[in-house]
Each structure stands twice: as C-alpha cells, then as structure tokens.
C-alpha cells in the first residue's frame, strides 16, 4: 500500500483556525481534513466541502417506511386476513395512521444512522488513524497532504506563523481512512465461532434423558392456582389467593325482590319494629289469580291460628280450648290491626311477634307481601263493604 506524507498543525482557537485555513488553501496546499473537538460552524464551507445529502437519504427511508406500513397493513387486513372487527370496514385507513407514522419515523431513523455509519466508515471495532489525540479534546488539528514537491519544513513554519501551537510531519499508510479492525481478525472470528458452537451445543437435545429430571423451572402455569368452581371462599383465602367472590354490598340477584333492609330488634327494643311502619308494600294490587294463591297460603300457614274468618280463632286456639296458649290477633275487625301499616305486619311475620314465630323460612319475601296485601284487602272489604267485590 502506498505511503503518504502529511503535515499536521494544531490550533487552539477557532479565531486562528479560519484565517489559517483560508491562507493554506490560497497557497495551493491540499488540506486533507481538519479534526475538531466539536462541530465548528462554517468550517465545512471554508474547506470547500459540499453540503451533505444525508437528510435526503432520511427522507427516502421515511417514504419506504410509510409505504411498507401502508402496504403491509393493507395487504394483511384486506387480503390475507380480512377480519371483521365490530363491523368496521376492512380498509380502515384512519386506524392505521398511528402505525404508519411510527414506521415512517423508525425506518428513517434507523436508515439514517446506518447510512451515517457507512458513509463515515465508522462502527464498533473500527479504528482510524489519529493525527493528534487532543483533536477530541481541545485542539483543532489541520492535516495537509504533501506531494513530492512539498517542503515540509517550510510548511510547518507557515503553520506556526499562522498561530499553530504544535506542528509535525507524519507518514501514514494510505487506505487507512476506511478504517481497520481494532482487534486482529482471527481473534474476532474465533470468538464468533466459539459462540456459535456453545449455543448450538447447548441447544442439542440429549433425547429423553432430560425429561426424567424432576426439577421444573417456569412450568408454564402447569400447576393451576386457578379458583375451582364452588370452592369455599375461606379455603381460597387461606391459599393466599385474592378472589373477590362476594357480590357488591347491596346488590340484588336478577329477578329477585327488593330486600327488607330492617334488621330484627335486639331483645327489649322496639326501634326497628316501629321503623318498619315506613316500609311500603311493593305489591300494590293482586290479580284474581294472585288473590287465590294468597288465600291458599293464608289457609296453609296462618289460618290454623288466625282462623278462616280472620277472627283470631283458628282450630289451634278455639276460644282458648285449643292447645295454643295465647289469643292470635284478630286480623279483621280489630281497629288496632286494621290501622297497622303493612310494613309493620311484614316485620312481625318475618321476625315473629311474641308467641307467633317467624314465617321467613316458609314463605318467600314476595309471598309474605302477598298474604299481607290479601289481609289488608279483607280488612277493607269489611270496613267498606260497598267497594268489595272480591271477598271470599
């Protein structure tokens, strides 16, 4: 390879560098390059370098990215895999814009950086000849290429007179500007080969031998920690699994009635019993079928004490001769019970009243309200007989 000779002059300030560049070029010398620690504006024009067209490359890469994204998504969503997403058109351009934009930027950036590395011939493991190590620190290093005729001594003198603080002459093998590998090629190659060997060896299967090991790592969720159907909530909690099995407070199952929110009184208190007066019967009227059903329920569950005629004289009491010790309430005809709000009646039927037990387990909420409505209708039938048409 050819050997070339260079004269190197170091400057410490831009202010001296620019006139020096001008003078050297005017004197007919060929400036090989100026190495600077930071981008010095205007130096490229002073050296007669043309504009870089790297940005044009960036624009082209951007267009490629845009077309790739548009073409790819378009082909996938309209031809290869025309999925129906909620009835939207297959060709849904607005929804593709974000990805098209991202690809535009990605292609442009990656393409430009690679191009930059390529045209500057820089990259990992590339080593370039450096004329002065302080070119990356605080020196502006001007390198002039010599010809056969150049008197290096005079040139160095000229540079000194232009303000160079340090000058020298160097001979360098040409072709170096392409850079060369920092590490000797054989060692790089052997490292790569060793890496390939190790990966391929470790990827080799040793048949079924490996399957016998009873050690498992990352078992792909083989051991389910999922909640089993109808598993007990407490059991799940004890296993340390968070599982929110409870419905939200106050939620009502579909089709069921509004719950009776008043709790049973503590012994000795009538607070809730009185509060129940305010609760309104959700059933406002009974159809004839419902009346028949309510009547049937009454006879099955209540009539035995309260009597067929609602007079509190059922077979169990029979004017005191029956086995039941207390007189059941006269549900129709007694002003106290005629005036009793339905909510309060409901309370008594649900939680019991003195010797009368709770009927919450025999009758559903709805049935209880129905029976109470029915009793109220009988009370009205007696107090206002003219409007009564349905009494039985």
């Amino acid at each position, binding site marked *: 390879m050819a050997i070339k000779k260079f004269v190197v002059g170091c400057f410490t300030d*831009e202010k001296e560098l620019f006139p020096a560049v001008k003078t050297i070029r005017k004197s007919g010398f060929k400036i090989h*390059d100026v*190495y*600077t*620690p930071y*981008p*010095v504006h205007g*130096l490229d024009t002073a050296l007669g*370098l043309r504009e*870089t067209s*790297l*940005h044009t490359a960036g624009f082209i890469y*951007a267009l490629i990215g845009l077309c790739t994204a548009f073409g*790819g*998504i378009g082909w*996938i*969503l309209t031809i290869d*895999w025309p*999925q129906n997403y909620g009835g*939207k058109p297959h060709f849904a351009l607005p*929804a593709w814009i*974000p*990805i098209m*934009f*991202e690809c535009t*930027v*990605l292609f*442009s*950036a*990656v393409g430009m*950086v690679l191009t930059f*590395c390529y*045209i*500057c011939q*820089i*990259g*990992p*493991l*590339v080593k*370039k*000849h450096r004329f002065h*190590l302080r*070119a*990356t*620190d*605080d020196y502006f*290093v001007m390198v002039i290429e010599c010809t056969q005729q150049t008197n290096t001594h005079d040139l160095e003198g000229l540079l000194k007179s232009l303000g160079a603080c340090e000058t020298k002459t160097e001979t360098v093998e040409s072709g170096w500007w392409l*850079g060369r590998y*920092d590490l000797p090629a054989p060692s790089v190659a052997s490292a790569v080969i060793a890496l390939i060997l190790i990966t391929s060896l470790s990827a080799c299967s040793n048949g079924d031998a490996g399957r016998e090991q009873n050690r498992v790592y990352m*078992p*792909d*969720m083989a051991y389910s*920690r*999922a909640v089993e159907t109808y598993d007990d909530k407490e059991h799940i909690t004890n296993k340390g*699994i968070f599982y*929110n099995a409870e*419905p*939200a407070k106050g*939620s*009502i199952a579909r089709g069921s009635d509004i719950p009776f929110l008043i709790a049973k009184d503590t012994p000795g208190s009538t607070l809730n019993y009185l509060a129940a007066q305010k609760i309104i019967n959700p059933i406002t009227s009974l159809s004839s079928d419902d009346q028949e059903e309510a009547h049937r329920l009454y006879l099955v569950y209540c009539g035995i004490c309260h009597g067929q005629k609602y007079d509190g004289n059922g077979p169990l009491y029979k004017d005191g001769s029956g086995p039941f010790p207390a007189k059941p309430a006269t549900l129709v005809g007694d002003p106290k019970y005629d005036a009793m709000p339905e909510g309060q009646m409901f309370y008594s039927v649900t939680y019991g009243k003195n010797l009368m037990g709770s009927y919450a387990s025999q009758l559903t909420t709805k049935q209880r309200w129905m029976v109470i409505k029915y009793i109220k209708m009988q009370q009205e039938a007696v107090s206002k007989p003219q409007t009564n048409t349905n009494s039985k």
Partner: protein
Amino acid sequence: MHLKYESQLREPLVYGEKTYGQVTEDILKPIERKPSKLWYVGFFISSALLLFGVYSVYRDVTYGIGQWNLNKTVGWGWDITNFVWWVGIGHAGTLISAILLLFRQGWRTGVNRAAEAMTIFAVLCAGQFPVFHMGRVWMAFYTLPLPNTRGPLWPNFNSPLLWDVFAISTYLTVSLLFWYSGLIPDLATVRDRAKTKFTKLMYGIGSFGWSGSTKHWQRHESLCLVLAGLSTPLVLSVHTIVSFDFATSVIPGWHTTIFPPYFVAGAVFSGFAMVQSLMLVVRKVFGMEDYITIGHIEAMNKVIVLTGSIVGVAYLTELFMGWYSQNKYEGYTFWYSRANLFSPYGWSYWGMMACNVLSPQIFWFRSMRRNIFVTFFMSVIVNIGMWFERFVIIVTSLYRDYLPSSWSIYYSPSPWEIGFFVGTFGLFFTCFFMFSKYAPVIAVAEIKYILKTSGESFKNKITKIETEPLDKFVDEQKHAH
C-alpha cells in the same frame, strides 16, 4: 467586591472563564477517577431493588398474574399505572434534546445527555409492565406482525394496544439511536485520554473509531438535526397513543377527547420533575455546578409550572364536562368516584390535585424557582402526583363500572405488584449509576460548541451592549444591516 454590571436578560450557560481543555477535564472527572463511596452505596441499593423486582416477576411468570391483586373490574391496576408513569417520565429527555434543539434553546446542552439517558432507561422500565401483564411472556412475540404459520394470524392493526407496541418500540429505538450518536464523539474523547489498554479498547469499540473529521461533523450535525425533527412528532405521538389506550374505550372517565394533549402535557411535566431530581443529585455529587447552573434549574421549573397548569386546566375541564354533559355515568365517575373526598378513592384524586396543580404554583416566584431545596422537594412531589394521576384515571374509572353487581371491593396491590414497581426503580437507577460512571453525563462536545457564544465571554458582550448608550447601539445595528 465588584461593582460590575450584571445582565438581567440572559445569564451565561456555563459559569467561569473556561478553556476547552478544562471543560473536558471537568466533565470526564467521574469517568477517569475511582467512583466515590456514595456511588457504591447507591449502586448496591439499586441493584438490590432490581433483584427483588426480578424475584417478583419470577413469581408472576411462574404462577400467573393471579399474583397481583387485580380483580374483576380493576383489570388494570399498578402495572398499567406504572407503565404510563414511566413512559411519561421518558418524555422530558426527548423534549429537551429534540424540541429544544429545534427551538434553539442553548440551555439544553447542560442537561440533554443525562435527560436522554433517563428517557431510555424510563422507557425500558415502562416496557416491562405491558409485557409481563401478558401473563405468558414467552408469547409476547404474538404482538409482532411476523409472517407465520398460525393461520394466517396477524395482530389487529386497528387496536390502540398494538399501536402502543409500535409506538413504544419505535420510541425506544429512536431515542437510543439519538442518544448514542450524540455519545460517539464524547466517548472518543474518553478513548483518546484513556491510560490503560482495557479502557482504550472498550471506549475504542464504543466510540466507533470517531476521529472528529470536519466532514463527519457535518454529517453528524445533519443526522442529529433530522433525528430531532423526527423525535419531535414522535414524542407527541407516543403519549398520544398511550392515551388512546384509554380514550378509545367506552369507560366513563377514559372516554374523553382531551386525553392526548393532556397526557402529553402530563408526561412532560413528570419528565422534567424527574430530570430535576436526577440533575440536582448529579451536579452535587460530581461537582458540575458550573455546567448545570441555577439558570438551567430555573428554566426547567418554568416548564414545570407551565405544564402543571395545563394539566390542572385539563382536570377542571374534565370535571366541568362531567357535569355539563349531563351524562349520568360521566357525572358519577368524575363527581362521585373522584372529586368526592369521602368516596373510597377520593384521597387519590385530592392527592393528585394537591401535588400536580396546587403545589407547582409556587414556581411563579423567581426566588422559589432558583431555590435548590424547593426544587428538589417539588420534583419529588410532582412525580408522586403524576403517579397518582395515572392511578386515579385507571382505578377510579374501573372499580365501579356499568354493572353494580360486579363492582369490586377496594383494590390494593399485592407485595409482588409493589415488588415489580420497586424492581423497575432498581433497573432505572442501576442503569443510571452505570451511565454516570462510564459515560460523560454532560455532552462535552456540545458544551464546547456553546462555550464561546454563551459562556462568560458572552456575558461580557451582553454587558457591553446593555451599558452603552442607546443611540450608539441603534447606530451600530443600522450599520450592521
């Protein structure tokens, strides 16, 4: 005592009369010396956090994301909150390096390198969350449109979640390229000053054989300018797309059109706060007070008060629309689930309001903007507030959905959920400690570039202009044209 006139308009970006050599010396000091005890302590703590995070993630992968306390309505909890939070933090780096470069804000040079590094590490942390949220992480490649024998089976390009995949990965790649291409000349500086063979070799590889040739610098400048131009819309698009994850849904509290700008402002807001926290520590620990000046801190505080107020306007707009729309569900979400202090998560909403909207207002006062302790305190507060913001948006919109019977009970994270978050802190700071030890935390070449125009000598020039009689100045300007 000197009675020299000081310019009120512009202060120098670099303090003290410095030479190029001194700049190199100052900035490379941490690399060329043995790290301090403090560095070791910090590094040890952050790697311990990282290990805990790795263990949490290990449990998550082994047992599935049932390890987290997500429940039937709160299907996005801490994981997505943390994701959005970290992505947001990343935005300041790009904003400083790209948008401020386009706006020709000279002050960016002091902080851009570290801010860009912060961006990369933050996006790296952010990316973990959606990936591990997938449960079976080894299937993560299903999100990529790879030619396949599964069908054909392709990802849904119309889905904001896929947009996110593209946005985040593009953002990470472009930020990395931008950061590294800026780093190459500085690594070359380290290489050329290296004493040992090993450092020479390592920095030789890292600096790509950079020589500082004029032509290379010319291309380098063009590259950086175009990358900045690309990053500017990119950074806006990334958080816009993240906000689309929410805004394109029909969940009250998410389904709002102001999300994109509001998310971007919030991202810049939290990002700058994080830059402040980091830079205040860096400048103290590495003694870089001359390069990261009070002027830098003040400029960033101005951005914080601006973006914080934008975010505040967005909060109020949401509340207003919650009422004005007369949409029952919107009203319930904004006025009951959020603004009502006594609702189950009311504390998080008001925590967010206090940290993000009210407290940054103290930066209207110049003395507060230039106070280091206030700034550091506020930077932490703002980041807490921004974390709350994401938590509020996600959890308060989800825990009471359209079907009251499936309303979930109070959502609070499991130790492994917290461990994952803590682990990303470990990752972030481990990376940052490594970076601050092995790479110049301030862009050396860029500081040298502005040294003459914005350093102490610039100050002298401005002082001269400001003290000379007005007629003379006008005269000079007239002749100059």
